[in-house]
């Protein structure tokens, strides 16, 4: 029995919160009740009237639940529509508000564009290189076993159960002659099963068959898509064409599609790797061939690792002749292929990504601060809206929508920035990024930018929105009471934000300073040779024409050396098999007469081993400390001689003279006499801690060295002209010999530290942005404070305080802010710096100079950023201030 009051109450409560079930009940009750009343009027008894009414109606419970469900669904739809309409209204309103304050909007949007743009760019790279799976079938099942010899390859393929389809490849660089000019293409020799293993098929022509990998059949090759386009004009009839590789004819049988770039994007062609069962590898464990395979179905990485730990040593015991001795022994490891491909780029990219996140966080704080100041100046507008019944939630939503709008504008500009910079970024990475060709602002990156925009929009607008609406709510009661308590607490919140911002900026600046100092330390290391006025070039004599150790090869290089040496201005020219700091220089195990003679025991390893022509030390500017350099008399047939670097001499003959001592290769070889001692030089990188090097005259070792050599020339002028001249001379002798990689030794040295320079440079750019944003933050807060306290300042001046005193007051305040931020930032830096360790050289992560420098820098920034507001405060007109 519903009385009027009850239904009225329900209606009222329904107004606050829609009561669908109640409405349905009311409607159905009305129906039943009406029927009962009619039945009573027709003269039925009360019981009959009721029974008939219910009977006629049918299943009340079922109908009720249908209606309630329906109405609730209906209401939800309406609410969504309403919400959407409000949202559209908010956006339109927000857009107008932003347009009314163009200076604010531009400043905030640019700040966000920088933050989001930098993040999106770095994320694009990170995503393509690290996060995306490799473009092969089931890429997470692919593993690499590191390096080994063909003998090991065959044995592993036979024995391993956890890894299927093992393939082997050999990075080689062959001179290719396509009948026109001598080209130097980069190729790899792969076992014919490599492409099927990776799940890749040729785009044109056919792939390798097992037959292609047999001795005598291997004269076929497949081109990469890029090479096919560039060198062969994308001709479809390229299949079947003959090219010359190492002086031997090869037939092009196929072209791989554009996405296939194994093992890297530099590969221009693939040829079959031939395993000669008669000669399956010189030494176990040092083969230098790469193994790649696929985990067998239902096998885990751990199982494969366990199996290899058992199988690998068993290879040695089953082939004792080839056991190279402990110093050569290497444990095979199973690594996911992706980890192997991505390698050292991954930590670098995460570090850069971290840096850009800092920049974005700082940008957010800055915009939050701008919004805070603005919300404060909109206090009256918001108060009016609050007074007109806009709930606090509604106002907050309005402000957050404005924030989102702002971040959307920033994101669009940021994405544009990312699109423009990401390729410059990729090409700027000096060490070359793996998978560089896959990098671009992809859909994922756009999604990331969107998420960033929404997150930042909410983050930077929520604090100002809450502050502003609470101020508005309190102010709406007393609208005319201008400046309630809000301004003071605004300044406090703002100061907190700027303090946090400075702390973040301090961390970034400290990191960048450490990286810059590391780079400087690295670059100031003397390489041990004199790189000035030296030009180097790679000469690649084809093995087929100039067999290693042949007289023809010796004559060819002697001819080249003589003619290059006779070029005007050249003081010396020499050959070396591997150029220091440009490529890895081999190490070598040696015997030492009287100390380490027996091959069966562990032999010492010399870090680096170079084969050079007599003029090498002169050409590279390496002084001979004792004894002599090589001469033309050190020929084959003459006694074998060597020159060692100082640390080799010190190690083996600490108390005596190295000159005249005898060393040798492992296994059967005649003793070699040490004839000279030179300083240690940096070989693999300037960071080398040990650069023990042994030199042999090339003439006595031609058969052990490939036919590709570097020529180093001292005294030539312009490197480009020198390169042309060298190329001219070589081509004059044999047009089929490519000359490549012409560069000055100074460039070589620079290049070897380019990674450190790049990292330091990029982080410094981020740090400068952070610093600038921090300065803007301080400026903003101080301007606000000065503005709010105009009266007080005027009063102080009226009471006789000097202008300087007022300036000091403001600047000290800014300094205090900066100091707190700096201290917090440095404390956090102390906690976080160990993560920078791997990039640092010659400088401690806790470097006091850096820390003091950062602190000083931020003090200067605080003073500069607060000076203008302080000046304005000092100029405050006391009379005007008092009248106001």
């Amino acid at each position, binding site marked *: 029995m519903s009385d*009027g009051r009850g239904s009225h109450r329900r*209606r009222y409560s329904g107004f606050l919160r829609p009561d669908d079930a109640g409405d349905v009940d009311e409607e*159905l009750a009305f*129906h039943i*009740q009406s029927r009962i009343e009619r039945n009573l009027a027709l003269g039925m008894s009360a019981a009959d009237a009721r029974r008939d009414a219910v009977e*006629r109606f049918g299943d009340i419970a*079922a109908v009720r639940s*249908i*209606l309630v469900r329906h109405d609730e669904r209906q209401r939800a739809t309406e609410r969504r529509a309403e919400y959407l309409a409000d949202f559209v209204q908010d956006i339109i309103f927000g857009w107008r508000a932003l347009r009314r304050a163009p200076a604010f909007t531009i400043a905030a949007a640019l700040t966000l564009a920088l933050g989001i743009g930098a993040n999106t760019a770095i994320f694009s790279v990170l995503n393509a290189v690290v996060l995306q799976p490799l473009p092969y079938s089931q890429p997470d099942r692919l593993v690499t076993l590191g390096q080994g010899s063909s003998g090991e390859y065959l044995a592993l393929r036979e024995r391993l159960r956890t890894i299927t389809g093992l393939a082997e490849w050999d990075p080689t660089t062959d001179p290719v002659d396509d009948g026109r000019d001598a080209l130097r293409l980069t190729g790899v020799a792969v076992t014919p099963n490599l492409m099927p293993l990776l799940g890749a098929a040729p785009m044109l022509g056919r792939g390798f068959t097992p037959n292609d990998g047999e001795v005598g059949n291997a004269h076929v090759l497949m081109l990469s898509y890029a090479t096919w386009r560039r060198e062969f004009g994308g001709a479809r009839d390229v299949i079947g064409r003959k090219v010359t590789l190492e002086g031997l004819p090869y037939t092009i049988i196929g072209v791989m599609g554009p996405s296939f770039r194994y093992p890297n994007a530099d590969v221009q062609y693939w040829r079959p790797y031939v395993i000669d069962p008669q000669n399956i590898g010189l030494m176990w464990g040092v083969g230098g061939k790469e193994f790649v395979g696929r985990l067998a179905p239902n096998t885990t990485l751990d199982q494969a690792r366990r199996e290899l730990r058992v199988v690998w040593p068993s290879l040695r015991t089953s082939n004792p002749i080839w056991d190279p001795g402990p110093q050569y022994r290497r444990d095979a490891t199973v690594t996911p292929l992706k980890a192997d491909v991505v390698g050292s780029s991954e930590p670098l990219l995460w570090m850069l990504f971290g840096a850009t996140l800092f920049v974005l966080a700082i940008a957010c704080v800055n915009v939050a601060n701008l919004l805070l100041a603005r919300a404060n100046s909109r206090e009256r507008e918001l108060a009016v809206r609050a007074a007109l019944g806009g709930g606090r939630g509604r106002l907050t939503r309005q402000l957050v929508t404005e924030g989102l709008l702002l971040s959307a504008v920033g994101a669009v500009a940021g994405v544009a920035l990312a699109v423009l910079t990401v390729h410059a970024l990729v090409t700027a990475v000096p060490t070359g990024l793996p998978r560089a060709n896959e990098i671009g602002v992809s859909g994922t990156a756009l999604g990331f930018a969107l998420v960033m925009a929404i997150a930042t929009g909410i983050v930077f607008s929520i604090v100002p929105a809450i502050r502003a609406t609470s101020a508005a709510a309190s102010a709406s009661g007393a609208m005319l009471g201008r400046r309630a308590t809000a301004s003071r607490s605004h300044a406090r919140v703002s100061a907190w934000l700027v303090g946090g911002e400075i702390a973040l900026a301090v961390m970034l600046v400290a990191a960048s300073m450490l990286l810059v100092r590391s780079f400087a330390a690295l670059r100031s290391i003397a390489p041990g040779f004199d790189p000035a006025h030296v030009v180097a070039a790679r000469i690649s004599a084809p093995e087929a024409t100039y067999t290693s150790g042949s007289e023809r090869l010796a004559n060819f290089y002697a001819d080249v050396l003589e003619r290059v040496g006779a070029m005007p201005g050249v003081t010396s020219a020499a050959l070396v098999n591997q150029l220091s700091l440009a490529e890895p220089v081999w190490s070598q195990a040696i015997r030492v007469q009287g100390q380490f003679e027996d091959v069966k025991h562990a032999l010492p390893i010399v870090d680096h081993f170079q084969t050079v022509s007599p003029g090498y030390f002169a050409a590279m500017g390496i002084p001979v400390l004792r004894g002599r350099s090589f001469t033309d008399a050190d020929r084959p047939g003459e006694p074998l001689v060597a020159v060692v670097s100082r640390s080799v001499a010190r190690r083996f003959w600490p108390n005596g003279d190295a000159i005249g001592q005898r060393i040798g290769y492992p296994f059967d070889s005649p003793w070699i006499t040490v004839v000279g001692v030179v300083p240690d030089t940096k070989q693999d990188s300037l960071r080398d801690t040990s650069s023990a090097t042994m030199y042999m005259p090339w003439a006595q070792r031609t058969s052990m060295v490939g036919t590709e050599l570097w020529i180093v020339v001292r005294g030539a002028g312009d490197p480009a002209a020198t390169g042309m001249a060298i190329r001219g001379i070589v081509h004059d002798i044999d047009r089929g010999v490519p000359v490549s990689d012409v560069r000055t030794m100074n460039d070589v040295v620079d290049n070897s530290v380019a990674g450190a320079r790049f990292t330091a440079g990029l982080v410094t750019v981020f740090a400068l942005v952070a610093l600038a944003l921090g300065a803007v933050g301080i400026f903003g807060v101080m301007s606000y404070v000065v503005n709010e306290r105009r009266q007080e300042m005027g009063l102080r001046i009226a009471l006789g305080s000097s202008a300087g005193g007022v300036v000091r007051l403001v600047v000290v305040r800014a300094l205090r802010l900066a100091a707190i931020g700096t201290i917090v930032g440095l404390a956090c830096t102390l906690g976080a710096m160990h993560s920078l360790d791997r990039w640092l050289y010659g400088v401690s992560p806790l470097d006091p100079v850096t820390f003091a420098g950062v602190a000083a820098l931020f003090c200067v920034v605080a003073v500069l950023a607060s000076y203008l507001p302080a000046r304005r405060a000092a100029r405050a007109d006391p009379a005007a201030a008092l009248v106001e």
Partner: protein
Amino acid sequence: MPAFRDPGDLLQGTLRILILKSLLLGRAHGYAISRWIEDTTGDVLRIEEGSLYPALRRLQDRGLVTSEWGVSENNRRARYYSITRAGRALLRTEASIWLEYSHAVTRVLRAEPSLA
């Protein structure tokens, strides 16, 4: 009293016509609609009253009727339904189809049985 129990689709459509037709007279609550149908057909067509309400919701979803809360003759709160323009249009077409159909059925039933 024997009445046509709503057996399915055909009568579903019928119910729709009956509701729309009843609303032509003016806005009405659910009980009034069922009373009107009952009275007009002399209690021959007695719909199961419960099915009236889901049908009204469906008509409302399609924009054929609208509803609002009002106060009834005996001063109680009731939900009133009215027909919309779209409802009138639909009623026109469906009514003519229905009439044609029922005439056809009538003609068949009245035809001389042929035993050929």
